């Protein structure tokens, strides 16, 4: 290549900017990427969020602790149980309440079912992002079974508000255990199909392998947690590190992958589904009899001080930071949401890739926009 052509090709300063979002099929919500392109190659991108900012933290300052629960559902709506649990654990720890064993077991089962449902939906959406439209229906078909379990016990499918400080809203349905066992049996047959349809596919592998390399150091520095962080070898599973609820009683593996590309994040989530099923199987037969809630006062007043509770949601580490001034309302509540941190690595990962890679990467990070904006 002569110098002249090189100059024309590589020293152009004009950038081609396109807006991806707020209404775009691949941002899974109202998120906007300002993408700067050079041909097909992304040079840099600027995320803009806030389109669905509802001020949950401000609203919580006017709500009593039981009233906060229903707002946490609406942050990461696919991990509604885990969000509820985080606030409840924080309040229980502050009040030094010991919840019954039955509650711990049920909470853990619900969290894992929620994780399964969330990962299923992620799988279908990820397939869609890459253009395999059929995955969407297979994933939703299987997720429907979990939602039916939820609906039978709590009356709602997505936003349950089922866990309250001290225990549960009410006891689970008598069918609960049988239905879960049925579902596990069913899903153990269906999950290998996911692999056949997408994981092994040569087009899929070419699209994901080596794309969006995230090193362990970057993952820690940027605070990437959850399956996205573990895909880079960052051991950040709260369930293992700081076990809560019934996690100390169960045997499971923290899946880690050292590669750190989009495919390893994908594979990790598939593996996590197997682990979740293992956890549920260990717990579902041994739910102890007992009360579904501990004795709680009518009005909860947290002692003055600051409390922090970490919980592993489907997308990473959810932290609840409550500052109490002894009143029945929290003085300040802050949710350290996993997606907030996970989003801002996008610029680093997607720069230098193609537009199609950008879509694959944002899909593999599994972003839920209301969780970012809160």
């Amino acid at each position, binding site marked *: 290549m002569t110098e002249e052509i090189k100059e024309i090709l590589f020293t152009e300063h004009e950038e081609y900017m396109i807006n991806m979002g707020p209404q775009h099929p691949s941002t899974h919500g109202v998120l906007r990427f300002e993408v700067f392109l050079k041909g097909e190659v992304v040079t840099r991108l600027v995320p803009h969020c806030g389109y669905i900012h509802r001020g949950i933290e401000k609203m919580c300052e006017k709500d009593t602790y039981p009233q906060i629960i229903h707002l946490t559902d609406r942050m990461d709506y696919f991990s509604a149980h885990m969000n509820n649990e985080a606030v409840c654990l924080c309040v229980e720890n502050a009040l030094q309440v010991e919840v019954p064993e039955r509650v711990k077991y049920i909470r853990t089962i619900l969290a894992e079912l929620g994780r399964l449902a969330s990962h299923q939906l992620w799988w279908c959406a990820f397939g869609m992002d890459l253009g395999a439209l059929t995955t969407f229906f297979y994933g939703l078909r299987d997720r429907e079974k979990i939602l039916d379990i939820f*609906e039978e016990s709590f009356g709602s499918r997505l936003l349950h*508000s089922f866990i309250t400080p001290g225990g549960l809203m009410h006891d689970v349905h008598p069918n609960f255990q049988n239905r879960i066992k049925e579902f596990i049996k069913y899903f153990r047959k269906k999950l290998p199909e996911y692999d056949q349809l*997408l994981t092994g596919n040569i087009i899929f592998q070419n699209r994901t392998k080596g794309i969006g390399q995230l090193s362990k150091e970057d993952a820690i520095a940027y605070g990437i947690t959850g399956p996205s962080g573990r895909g880079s070898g960052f051991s950040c599973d709260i369930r293992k590190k700081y076990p809560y609820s019934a996690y100390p009683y169960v045997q499971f593996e923290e899946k880690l992958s050292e590669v750190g590309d989009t495919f390893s994040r994908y594979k990790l989530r598939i593996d996590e589904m197997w682990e979740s099923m293992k956890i549920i199987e260990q717990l579902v037969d041994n739910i102890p009899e007992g009360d579904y809630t501990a004795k709680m006062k009518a009005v909860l007043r947290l002692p003055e001080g600051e409390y922090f509770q970490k919980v592993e949601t489907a997308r990473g580490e959810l932290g609840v930071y409550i500052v109490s001034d002894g009143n029945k309302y929290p003085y300040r509540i802050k949710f350290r949401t996993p997606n907030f941190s996970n989003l801002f690595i996008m610029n680093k990962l997607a720069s230098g890739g193609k537009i199609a890679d950008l879509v694959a990467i944002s899909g593999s990070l599994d972003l839920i926009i209301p969780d970012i904006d809160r």
Partner: protein
Amino acid sequence: MEIITYITDIFKGLKSLWKGMMITGYYFVHPKEIVTQRYPENRKTLVMFERFKGEVTMPHDENNQHSCTGCGICETNCPNGSIEIITRKEVNESGKLERVIEKHIYHLSMCTFCELCIKTCPSNALAWGNEFEHAVFDRHKLTKVLNKPGSSLKKEPKEKKLEEVKN
């Protein structure tokens, strides 16, 4: 040797593609696996789960009586202000002034189905209804009065109530 890997790559790729096509092909020829619910047609047979949270209702018995005393606990517990209670004072049989609800107003459009009103109600006057077809053209229609016109407070014998508490 590169030529051999080149050719094996092609065959591996084709095999993986064929595997995926077998899955979609399998479902294509197995219409029994179809999960579509034909909604308006199956309305008769469609049964919601008994715990389904459709809307907040106030159960009335055959004498058009409910058990809401109008204490206002549900109103204070509602995080969204979707419940309003209008009460009035009335002289009862024993000559005492008693609080009676005039209207128990429920804004379905603001409800987030957090279940706090139902859980905290001391007299179990509220319950979930299974109705889920809430679509209307005017959102004011979603504001409902839960107590039926002409309804009154259920008078239960005191002993029976005590027994219930004991149980």
